[in-house]
């Protein structure tokens, strides 16, 4: 039937609209057009170059043993150990920073978006956040050092041999890092709250729920993916920072406990992260283990790329996610994601 008809009917050639050609544009637009192309291509080349170069170096120098060995002071690369301490340090600082920034950031965003009373305070908080977002992290770091070397905050950090409070520790570094991550978490939470339709709020008010209950039980759960992506962005910011680590964590070779006790001592002790490890071992630093620096930088890059992929997934996959139930779908998603 369909074939009979198609045999009889002659399909006319598909006609395409004529595209406006760049050649007819004024010279200045044509130049701009070409420049856009060139910069676009250049950007791709740079991004590709970073990944490729770090991949080559990383694969060449990365040894699995480096993940479990502590660094050791040596002028020979073969004896300088691995970077297990910096990896642990990165995890610890990130965990502390996020543990503080996530609840505070979400609460601030909820207050700004749902209450913002009194208005002057809301405006002040907004400008404060903007300012923090724009401050170079080294300024935050030196300010943090100033605050935490106050005597009454000495219980948070390591003491020098002569008893003065250094202000340096995982706890204090984590606290300052949380300030770095805060604006990102607030921004993404606020934006998501602003996009929620008012009828969601009204539905809850109409049941006799207060603003606070509505925010806590309806609005925030509804924007969980956005909060998560803000948190992941904040993690990326913390993981990538060097200045705060150098100034407040000490960027020591190994993680050093403040008083020998296992957990609390470690939290109050100094240490390093991948960024400071790369910096110190790079040709620009004082170490002499360039290969280790490349390997660590590769690990750092992989962590950050993985976080970026996670953000993309969290923000784009909101619709798809509800369908992603069950192990089968999850495995499929994981396979698709690693490819």
């Amino acid at each position, binding site marked *: 039937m369909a074939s009979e008809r198609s045999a009889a009917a002659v399909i006319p050639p598909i006609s395409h609209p004529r595209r406006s050609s760049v050649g007819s544009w004024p010279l200045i637009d044509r130049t701009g057009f070409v420049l856009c192309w060139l910069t676009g291509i250049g950007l791709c080349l740079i991004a590709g170059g970073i990944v490729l170069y770090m991949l080559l170096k990383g694969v060449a120098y990365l040894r699995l043993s480096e993940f479990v060995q502590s660094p050791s002071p040596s002028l020979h690369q073969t004896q300088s150990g691995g970077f297990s301490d910096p990896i642990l340090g990165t995890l610890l600082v990130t965990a502390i920073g996020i543990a503080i920034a996530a609840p505070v950031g979400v609460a601030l965003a909820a207050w700004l978006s749902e209450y913002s009373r009194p208005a002057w305070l809301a405006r002040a908080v907004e400008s404060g956040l903007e300012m923090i977002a724009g401050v170079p992290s080294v300024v935050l770091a030196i300010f943090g050092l100033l605050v935490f070397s106050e005597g009454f905050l000495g219980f948070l950090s390591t003491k020098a041999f002569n008893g003065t409070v250094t202000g340096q520790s995982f706890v204090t570094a984590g606290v300052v890092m949380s300030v770095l991550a805060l604006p990102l978490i607030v921004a993404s939470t606020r934006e998501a709250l602003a996009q929620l*339709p*008012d*009828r*969601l*709020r*009204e*539905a*809850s*008010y*109409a*049941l*006799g*729920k*207060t603003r606070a*209950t509505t925010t806590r*039980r*309806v609005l925030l*759960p*509804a924007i969980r993916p956005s909060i998560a992506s803000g948190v992941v962005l904040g993690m990326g910011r913390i993981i990538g920072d060097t200045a705060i680590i150098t100034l407040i964590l000490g960027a020591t070779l190994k993680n050093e406990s403040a008083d020998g006790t296992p957990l609390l001592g470690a939290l109050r002790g100094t240490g390093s992260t991948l960024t400071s490890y790369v910096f110190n071992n790079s040709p620009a630093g004082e170490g002499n283990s360039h290969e280790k620096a490349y390997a660590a930088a590769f690990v750092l890059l992989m962590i950050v790329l993985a976080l970026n992929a996670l953000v993309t997934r969290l923000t784009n996959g909101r619709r798809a996610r*509800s369908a992603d139930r069950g192990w089968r779908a999850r495995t499929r998603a994981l396979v698709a994601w690693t490819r």
Partner: protein
Amino acid sequence: MPPPVRRITLEREPYVAPPRAAGATAQAPANGRLRAVRAPSTQVRQRMAIEGVWLAYGENWVVRDVSLPVRQGEVLALIGASGSGKTTLLRSLNRLTEVTAGAARSGRVSLDGEEIHELEVNALRRRVSMVFQQPNPFPMSIYDNVAYALVESPRHGGRRRRRTPELELAVADALRRAGLYDEVASDLERSALRLSGGQQQRLCIARALAAEPEVLLLDEPCSALDPISTATIEKLIVELRETVAIVIVTHNLQQAFRVADHVAFMHLGELVEYGSSEQVFDRPSQQRTRDYVSGAFG
């Protein structure tokens, strides 16, 4: 405030159509009039009184001097063209207009004799619940949508736990009253957003009923629904009127005729006519009502 307009007396005598010259008969009443034969409500009791209410957004008075009774045991329908202030009037009954900046009210609205402005607002809204034009379930499971109305409410001791035997019973009961239980009982943990529009709206009704309100406000609850879901909801409304005072805004005249015991016709913010549904549809006293119910405008 603008000059007060004509006040409409309540509880008027049944309207008796004056003898008319042949040919000038009023248009036929609401077309396709099939009203389920239903038992008259056993007990009719006044719950809310709207007395000389004016409502404004900023400088713009959109409801002018409206007086109406809201009674338990019967359904009150608000009809009228778009923009005549029906939604605004409805929202003022549980003070939801206060959410809108610049909204103001004058006149008196009382619930069981108490001015609603004197009541604690969230307590009022638990007693006077509302269902909106667009189904607006929360993005959570079906169970949680209904349980949300119950947990943390003072009536249930302010408890936070979302899984208690009493709570589960109350949720199932609310779903049953809204005529949704049989369709969703197999999986109450399913996301409410994956229900059909009609099911979502019945879920919203279940949610509104869960906290056992005394007055239920429905703002064009069927405007986004198919005829079958509409019929289900209409049946539900008629059943509910025994225990809950119901005010329904509707665009659909047949629907108003099918479900309502009393009808109020609003036009441009004014209450033009109020009376029993038979009277308003069959023997409207005002020319504007006659035009509207015969489909001349709106």
